[in-house]
């Protein structure tokens, strides 16, 4: 089984816009799954509704395309009925944090053996660019034409507080690190949450002076601060500059998981 076999060839090229980060994240996920040598019959991809959730349909393994925000609820069911199945959840920021917020925190609390990949593109891309709970403050969207006035969600802190076993954040520019994080997340018993910041040149970049996909990737490259450096700065009393964000591995712990088969 090669890497190309994990893609569903008859569905490609996919429907994502030119330069959409979701395709990159799909590459990283399938590469991590391929590197671990999982059997195609023992892997299930579950996704909700949104741009990000189309990703499950482009894999040749079994995939569930479920109702809006309820991907984690369906994944819990799959995992508990078939505990040997490797369940990977693709979800977006609107799917995971807005409508599926309660499912998300309770999946973290139960610590079910899932790998959740949240493709955070800062906006509701598929429905026309409405502001989501992860839209950064001051960004212009269809529903916030004078700039977003609300504070965005920090999904990694939320997952950490709710009790997930592995929490990491990367961007679609850091592909090697992202692949490694997904591989570690798949091997970790318990819920692994990986937030990936993805570029959305069509709905988000168009209104925020980041029209070209390369501009948004450049923005990720310049604004990402590694966790080690952020910790050093915090110890020295230097606050994080506005507009920058921390990337890296936040939590790796061994809380008792649910849905793991005892040998």
């Amino acid at each position, binding site marked *: 089984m090669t890497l*190309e076999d994990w*893609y569903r060839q008859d569905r*490609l*090229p*996919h429907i*994502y*816009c*030119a*330069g*959409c*980060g*979701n*395709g*990159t994240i799909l*590459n*990283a996920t399938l*590469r991590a799954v391929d590197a671990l040598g999982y059997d195609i019959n023992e892997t299930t991809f579950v996704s909700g509704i949104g741009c990000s959730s189309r990703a499950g349909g482009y894999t040749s393994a079994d995939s569930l395309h479920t109702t809006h925000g309820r991907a984690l609820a369906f994944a819990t069911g799959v995992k508990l009925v078939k505990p040997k199945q490797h369940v990977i959840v693709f979800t977006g920021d609107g799917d995971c944090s807005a409508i599926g917020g309660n499912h998300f925190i309770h999946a973290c609390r139960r610590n079910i053996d899932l790998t959740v990949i949240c493709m955070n593109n800062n906006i509701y891309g598929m429905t026309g660019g409405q502001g989501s709970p992860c839209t950064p403050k001051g960004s212009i969207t269809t529903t916030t034409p004078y700039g977003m006035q609300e504070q965005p969600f920090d999904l990694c802190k939320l997952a950490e507080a709710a009790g997930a076993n592995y929490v990491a954040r990367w961007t*679609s*520019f850091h*592909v*090697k690190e992202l*692949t490694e994080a997904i591989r570690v997340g798949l091997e970790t018993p318990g819920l692994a949450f990986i937030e990936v910041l993805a570029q959305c*040149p069509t709905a988000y970049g168009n209104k925020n002076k980041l029209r*070209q*996909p*390369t501009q948004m*990737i*450049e923005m990720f490259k310049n604004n990402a601060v590694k966790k080690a450096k952020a910790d050093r700065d915090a110890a020295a009393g230097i606050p994080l500059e506005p507009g920058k964000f921390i990337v890296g591995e936040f939590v790796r712990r061994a809380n008792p998981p649910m849905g793991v088969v005892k040998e």
Partner: protein
Amino acid sequence: MKLVINEHRCKGCNLCTMVCPYRIFQEGSKPGIRGYVIPVLDRPERCTNCRLQKVYGRQLCGMCQMICPDQAISWVEEKPFEPKKVEIEY
């Protein structure tokens, strides 16, 4: 090994032009089969993976393939070396 861009999949986002350490991918100017302006390859024989994959027995670099959102970049086996007639100008 040879670097190829699948013209049926590429959507011309030019992300590969900014990640390649050798700047092999250059922004194109002519539309391809599907109407997207796809990047052109500038001396692709410089690519690390093309040259050294057989020697090391594993994938090297591969940033362009990883970041390509449309799964358009791949490496194909080349035919064995064929002698070519080269005209040398004195």
